[in-house]
C-alpha cells in the first residue's frame, strides 16, 4: 500500500464507515461541494449524495443540536467543525445537552465531532486552539487526539462505532506533514489505549498529537546524551489509559508531561494528581511539565514559537529531570 497522509487516513475512515453503515451521515459547514475547509470530506458528496453529506448554515449550536437529535433516531452523525475554536459557539449544546443526555435520561448520543485543531501554522488566536481540557473536564464526552495516520483512521472508526459522543481532534499541523502505509483491511484502534512509542528506563515522557512527535524527537536527542526516555502517546484522553502511564512511571520513576495546550488547568495537572494517587512512592523526581504559555495563541511567528513548547524545551526539562 502506498503511504497516505494523516488527512487521507481520516478521509478513508469516513468513506469506509459510510459505506458500511447507512446510519452514518456527515454534517457541517462547506463539507459537500467544497469538501471541507481542509478537504477531509472531499469526494463524499459524489459518492454518498446530498442526503448524507449535509452543508449547514454557520451555526455551530444548530449543527451539534441537530446531530444530537439525529442520533436519538439511531443515526451516527459525524460533525465537522471548520476549526475546533468554533466549538466555543456550541459549548452549551455539547456540554449540557449532549454530554449529560445518557446520564440524565438514558439517551445515548452516538455522534462524532471532528475538529481541526492545534497550532504551529500561524493561525492566530482563533484558529490554533487546543480546547481539549474543557471537555476532559466535562463528564460524558470521549476525547480522541491521534498523532499518526494509522491511529487516526482506526480511532475514527472506533469513534463512529462508539455509542457515546466523541470529540475527535485532528491536529492540522499533521494533516499533510506525515504519511504512513495503512492495512488494506478494515481495522479499529480501540478508544482508551495509550501507546508506548519508545521504550526507555530513565524517565517517561507523556504526550499526544503533534507534541508526541516532538517528544519522540526529544527522546532521540536525549539518547545521544545517554538518557533513555520512554515516550507514551496518549491517543485517547477520555477514557484515559492511566495504567500505561502508571506502569511506565513505576519503571522509570520520573515523568515529564508535554502538551501544546496552555499550562494552567492543562492535562499535566490531572496526570500529576493521578500519579500522586497511584504511584507516589515511585516518584524519584518532581512531575514536570512542558506546555504552552498561559496566553492566547499569538499570531506572529516569533511569538507563536515562544508560545508553543519547543524541542529544546523538552530536551532541557527532560535532562534536568533525569539528573534530579
Amino acid at each position, binding site marked *: 500500500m502506498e503511504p497516505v497522509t494523516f488527512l487521507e487516513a481520516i478521509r478513508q475512515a469516513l468513506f469506509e464507515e459510510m*459505506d458500511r453503515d447507512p446510519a452514518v451521515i456527515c454534517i457541517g459547514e462547506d463539507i459537500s461541494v467544497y*469538501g471541507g475547509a481542509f478537504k*477531509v470530506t472531499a469526494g463524499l458528496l459524489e459518492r454518498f449524495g446530498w442526503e448524507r453529506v449535509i452543508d449547514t448554515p454557520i451555526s455551530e*449550536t444548530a449543527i451539534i443540536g*441537530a446531530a*444530537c437529535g439525529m442520533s436519538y433516531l439511531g443515526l451516527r452523525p459525524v460533525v465537522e467543525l471548520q476549526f475546533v475554536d468554533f466549538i466555543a459557539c456550541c459549548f452549551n449544546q455539547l456540554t449540557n445537552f449532549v454530554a449529560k443526555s445518557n446520564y*440524565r435520561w438514558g*439517551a445515548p448520543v452516538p455522534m462524532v465531532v471532528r475538529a481541526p485543531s492545534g497550532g504551529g501554522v500561524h493561525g492566530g488566536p482563533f*484558529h490554533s486552539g487546543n480546547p481539549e481540557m474543557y471537555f476532559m473536564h466535562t463528564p460524558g464526552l470521549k476525547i480522541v487526539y491521534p498523532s499518526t495516520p494509522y491511529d487516526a483512521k482506526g480511532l475514527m472508526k472506533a469513534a463512529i462505532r462508539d455509542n457515546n459522543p466523541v470529540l475527535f481532534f485532528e491536529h492540522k499541523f499533521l494533516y499533510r506533514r506525515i504519511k504512513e502505509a495503512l492495512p488494506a483491511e478494515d481495522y479499529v484502534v480501540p478508544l482508551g489505549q495509550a501507546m508506548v512509542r519508545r521504550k526507555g528506563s530513565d524517565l517517561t515522557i507523556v504526550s499526544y498529537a503533534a507534541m508526541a512527535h516532538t517528544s519522540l524527537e526529544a527522546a532521540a536527542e536525549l539518547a545521544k546524551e545517554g538518557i533513555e526516555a520512554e515516550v507514551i502517546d496518549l491517543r485517547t484522553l477520555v477514557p484515559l489509559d492511566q495504567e500505561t502511564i502508571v506502569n511506565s512511571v513505576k519503571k522509570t520513576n520520573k515523568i515529564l508531561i508535554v502538551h501544546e495546550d496552555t499550562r494552567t488547568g492543562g492535562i499535566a495537572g490531572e496526570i500529576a494528581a493521578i500519579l500522586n494517587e497511584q504511584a507516589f512512592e515511585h516518584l524519584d523526581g518532581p512531575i514536570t511539565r512542558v506546555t504552552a504559555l498561559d496566553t492566547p495563541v499569538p499570531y506572529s511567528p516569533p511569538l507563536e514559537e515562544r508560545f508553543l513548547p519547543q524541542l529544546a524545551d523538552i530536551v532541557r526539562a527532560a535532562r534536568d529531570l533525569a539528573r534530579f
Partner: protein
Amino acid sequence: MFPKNTLRPAWPPPMHNTAKNNGRAKVTASPALTREQHLDLYFFMALNRAVEEAMVRLFRQNKIVGGLYSSLGQEAVSVGTAYALEKRDWMAPMIRNIGSLLVKGVPPRDIFTQHMARYTSPTKGKDGTSHFGDLKNLHIVSPISMLGDLIPVMTGVAMAGRYLGQKIVAMTWIGDGGSSTGAFHEGLNLAAVQRAPLVLVLENNQWAYSTPVSRQVPLRDLADRARAYGVHSAIVDGNDVAAVYQTAKAAVDRCRAGQGPVLIEAKTMRMRGHAQHDPAEYVPQGMFEYWKARDPIERCEKFLTANKLWDAKTKSEIHARIDGLIKADLEFAENSPLPPPELAEQGVYCEGPLCLEPRWERPIAEVTPPGCSVQAAWKVSDPGSIEAGQAMPGAPLAKFTRMEKTPAAPRSPAKGSTKKIAARSKGRR
C-alpha cells in the same frame, strides 16, 4: 435506555376513543372536531390542571424536590398542540408542557415521581421535573434547562425521520422569553433551510420570569419571528383549546406534506409566578382578572354545555376518572423509594447497545446506491444569484436534496478519482 422498570404499570388509562392510536381519537384533516375530540381535549386539560394542583399540595407538604413550575391558564396550549400529533411523531416539551406529556401518553405517576425525585421515576432521580423522555415508545426528547436548545435538537429529529423514510413530524415549544436565545435562531433557521418537518409552538404567556414581553422582543406579534426564516406562521388564541388544536393540526399536516417548518404563536397568560416560590407581585393590577375571565378550561366547559356536547353525568364521570387516576398515581409516587446513592456513579457513558437502532421505512439502497454519483456543483440560471436560493422556499424537498444528481460514472472511495479531488486545492482556512 434504562433497564425495564417493573414498578411502572401500563398507561394510558381508558379513554373515550379507546385502544388504538395512543388511546385518543385518530385526528384527521377535518376542520370540525368530533364530540369525542372535544371531550378528549377537555379531559386532558382537566387532568393537566389536576396533576398540577396535586403537585402544589405536594410542594406545600415539602415533598417536591427543587422548584415547581405551573402552567395554570396555559393548559389549552399544551393539550391542543400535542393532540395534533400522531403516535409515531416526536415531541420535546418545555417546563410548562405537562399537558403535552399527558396527551402523548405519559402517566401522571411519571410526573409525580420525577418531581419527588424517586427511584421509580423515568430518570430514576437523576433529573427532575419534566426533564425526562422516552426514545423508544413515546418518542419524547427530554428538555434541558437552557432555553432554546431543544429547537436544533428537534430539527435534527425531523431531519433524521425524513432520512429514514418515516413520515414523522417533530414538535417542540418555546416561551416568549426563550425566543431571544441564539439557539432559537440557529435551530429555526436550520429547520427552514432544510425544510424540516418541525412545528415550533411559541407560547406567549406575557412574561419571562418577571420580565414582560416588551423588554424581550420589540414585536406586537411574536409570530413575526418566523419572517426572518421565510417560515410559515400562525397566531392563535391560546386559551381556546379547539382553536389551538386546529391550528396545530394544520401545521402538522403541512409539515408532514413536506412543506417545511411552522411557527405557531399561542397568546395566553401565565396565571402564577414563574415558579412556586414567586408570588408574581410584579404583575400589574388587573392582568390576572382579565385572563381569569378567559380561563381555557371554563371556556371549554361553557362550550361543551352550550353545544350540548355533554351533560352533568359525563362531566362528573370525567372528573371521577381523573380523581381516581391522580389518587392511584400519587399513592404510587409517595410509596416509591428514593434512589440508592450508588446510582449517582452510574450511567455517564452508554456501555451497552443503542436503545434505539435506526428504523428504516425506505429502502436502504436508496441512500447508498451502489453506483451513485452526484455532480459536486451548484447550479445557476440567473447569474445575479444562485438558482437554488430563488427556488428553494417553494420547491419540493426532492428537488432540494437531489437536484444535482447526474448519471455520471461511479467513483469508489479511497482510490484514484477521489484522490484527485482531494489534491485539487489545498485546504486552508
